[in-house]
């Protein structure tokens, strides 16, 4: 059974469509991410689910119950949704101690004192804050403040946990650590997670399923691996990981780089429905690179090579186009200007824009 359901949800801000006809079902206990560049409408979607924004069109159902509906003009206020939420800027209350911050939602619900203390203790313990319970947030680090926000959100044992870029104010190392902690909390408390982020690695690492969004429109919904392996369009491909787009001419199932139509094709299995010219898209790691001007593959030359440590990063010229290639250092380093030949292993085909 689906826990959370959005039906044709649309939101406008002064004529600008922030979210356009979004349909989505999230299952109970699922960890679901919203991924997209800033301004794509992912935060707006989360805020509509939280109840901070009304819907211009559509409905939101939780456990089959209507929470928001533009048709019925009904909006359950945020304070009655029993959700947990964590914000990017932490939003811990500076005038309350760690303990009082976490106890606040329980006090509001008039939970009896004994039960309340038990639950606050548990929330503090599972976020590793027990020792700091009497301190004020200003004495704590960013990571610790975000733990307070997490503890405060789990204290009420919410059905759904909403996380709005919770880790983007933290440094990279801490970010990775907190990812595991969030997953850990989910295992322990069993809530559904809706997670907004612009960091694709974070989304991949955390989610059971995810949604990629751009300009208010859903681009693709699926498991991280599906989205990585079978991107629905050029935007998704370019947003997930490093990408190359090579313009190619299609002729009888073969694809030739533009202006190099006399030599070898880059593929013999090009689709036929994309017209005369289309994009061949591939990851920098999916390219084989061999030194020398003769042999198999497409002739190319090294425009620039950059040593990155384990990897060597190349800009490779193919005709008038340039692509990016990354190879392990152990395969040897090609010099700038050196002639080479390339073979592309895994190609995605996209029409021209």
């Amino acid at each position, binding site marked *: 059974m689906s826990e959370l359901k959005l039906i044709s949800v649309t939101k406008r801000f002064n004529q600008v469509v922030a979210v356009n006809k979004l349909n989505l079902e999230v299952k109970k206990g699922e960890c679901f991410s919203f991924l997209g560049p800033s301004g794509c409408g992912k935060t707006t979607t989360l805020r509509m689910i939280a109840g*901070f924004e009304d819907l211009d069109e559509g409905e939101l159902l939780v456990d089959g119950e209507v929470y928001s509906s533009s048709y019925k003009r009904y909006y359950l*206020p945020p*304070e009655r949704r029993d959700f947990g939420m964590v914000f990017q800027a932490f939003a811990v*209350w500076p005038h309350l101690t760690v303990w009082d911050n976490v106890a606040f939602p329980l006090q509001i619900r008039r939970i009896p004192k004994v039960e309340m203390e038990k639950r606050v203790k548990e929330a503090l313990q599972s976020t590793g804050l027990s020792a700091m319970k009497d301190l004020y947030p200003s004495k704590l680090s960013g990571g610790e403040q975000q733990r307070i926000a997490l503890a405060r959100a789990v204290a009420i044992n919410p059905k759904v946990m*909403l996380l709005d870029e919770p880790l983007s104010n933290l440094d990279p190392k801490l970010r990775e650590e907190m990812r595991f902690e969030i997953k850990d909390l989910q295992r322990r408390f069993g809530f559904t997670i809706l997670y907004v982020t612009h960091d694709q690695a974070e989304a991949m690492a955390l989610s059971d399923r995810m949604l990629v969004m751009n300009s208010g429109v859903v681009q693709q919904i699926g498991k991280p691996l599906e989205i990585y392996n079978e991107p629905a369009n050029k935007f998704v491909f370019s947003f997930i990981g490093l990408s190359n787009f090579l313009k190619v001419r299609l002729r009888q199932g073969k694809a030739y780089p533009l202006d190099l139509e006399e030599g070898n094709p880059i593929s013999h299995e090009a689709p036929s429905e994309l017209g005369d010219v289309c994009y061949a898209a591939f990851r920098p790691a999916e390219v084989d690179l061999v030194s020398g001007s003769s042999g198999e593959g497409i002739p190319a030359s090294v425009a620039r090579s950059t040593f990155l440590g384990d990897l060597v990063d190349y800009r490779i010229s193919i005709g008038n186009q340039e692509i990016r290639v990354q190879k392990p250092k152990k395969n040897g380093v090609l010099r700038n200007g050196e002639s080479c030949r390339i073979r592309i292993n895994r190609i995605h085909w996209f029409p021209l824009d």
Partner: protein
Amino acid sequence: MVDIYTKPKISAAQIVLLFSILVLVVVVGIPVILIFLTAFFEDGKLNIPGFLQILKDPDTYQALWNSLVIAFGTTLVSTSVGVFFAWLVARTDLPFKKTMKALFLVPFMLPSFIGALAWKVLLSPRAGYINKFLMVLLGLDTAPIDIMSMGGIIVIESMYLFPFVFLQVESALERMDPTLEESARISGAGLLTITRKITLPLVLPSILSGALLVALYSLAHFGVPAILGTEKGIYNIPTKIYERIYSSGGSFRAIRVGTILSTILVISAALILKAQDFLLKKGKYQIIAGKSMRPMLLKLRALRTPLLIVSILYIGITVILPTVTIFLVGGLKTYGLSFETKNLTWANYLEIFRWKMTKDAIWNSVYLSLGAALVTMLAGTMISYVIVKSRPKGKFILELLGVLPFSLPGTVIALGVILTWSGRFGINIYNTPWIIFVAYVARYMAFSLKSNSAALQQVSDSLEEASRACGATHFQTLKNIVLPLIRPGMISAFFLIFLPALRELTTSVLLYGPTTRTIGVAIYALNEDGETVRAAALASVALVIILIGETSIRKFLARLQKQE
């Protein structure tokens, strides 16, 4: 051979430092010391019993008590009104918010003594227009409202002081991270609980610092109690000092009483500022948002229109009604006539520019405030530079002297200036415009220091160092780097001094001579002499000058900001 640069015995920086100290000592240091000396010493001997005896005198004791009651009441009323309207503008879906926000700051423009004059015309128990109207309407024998009372003084002062609180609280609410409230909401709290438990505690430092500003101002305020209180025998400290000195023709004994009361004022002001400092440090929560988002607004629903009407009525009653009254009264052929066209004339306004006394007053105010603004701005820039940027020995003396002007009420400055510049040190400028000029410089030095040092703190040291590294001398660096960067701070200091000086009353009223009345003094004196119509006509002219000044300056500053 290499030319070795030898440091001169006294560097230019030290000369500037000494000069800065000298300016502050002469302008504020000596006057304050003389006030304390006069208060505590008599004939060269410490005289504590004499000091206490004056405080025990029922007359002065009553003035002290009144000052405290008025300050307390005004603070309470202003704070409630200011917080309410700030919340209404920042946190609800009140319509026409931008306009309303601007309107709530308009009371700042109306000098409170002119407001008090208008309210006296409307609500004095004997002849107030509204009172007379109500008496006829309701068939009463006595006036229903008496504005010339402690309560009246508190209400009128609050009307013109509440923007202090409004401004502070509104901006705090606006800058506050909305997720602090949203996270309370998602935690299950309703809007009332959030307001009580989250919002108000978080903006409490701003509320209190606005309230303390009002208290500081009200405690030492002359205009409103002078116009509404003295006739009924209600005095606060500033009006009592004025009364004592004028009824005795400026006798030294009266001045001595004045210094003792001043001492109390200075101590209270210092305590208030200390409290504010403490609150600002303690309550400095990081509540400012990282990314700006629209804060959640309370939907007023059915109350939306009524609350808009309340706000507009409030502005109408506190600003428009008194302004219109002043203009109408200023046009009356004789005071007491009804406001019909046949009773009104333009001649009164024109006469203001023909009659020597009023003409002089306008001219005095204009050149004194322009001159004081210019000199104080330049001196403030120099002193701030020494305090903020160069760190020579003896800087702490400067810092100590620099904070002194903040805690000096206008009346105290006037007394100090009288003690200093009436011949004791060989210079007697009493009864000349110079004494008012010196007093203005002392009174507004605080504004200049604040504005200039804020601007200087924005200029990072590395900018100057980069200029020196490029081969510029210290002086060239000042001229080409520092001054252009702090120009906006200097200009705003100039206007922060010029505009209030133009309508100054508290200080000038103790210093004016037969030919050196300022606009404020002239209005006050005309009112005292029962020339209500002339007072109102001059006040109307003053309001027009202030309005032109304020708007052109705002336009100018906006253009300057655009350029930056």
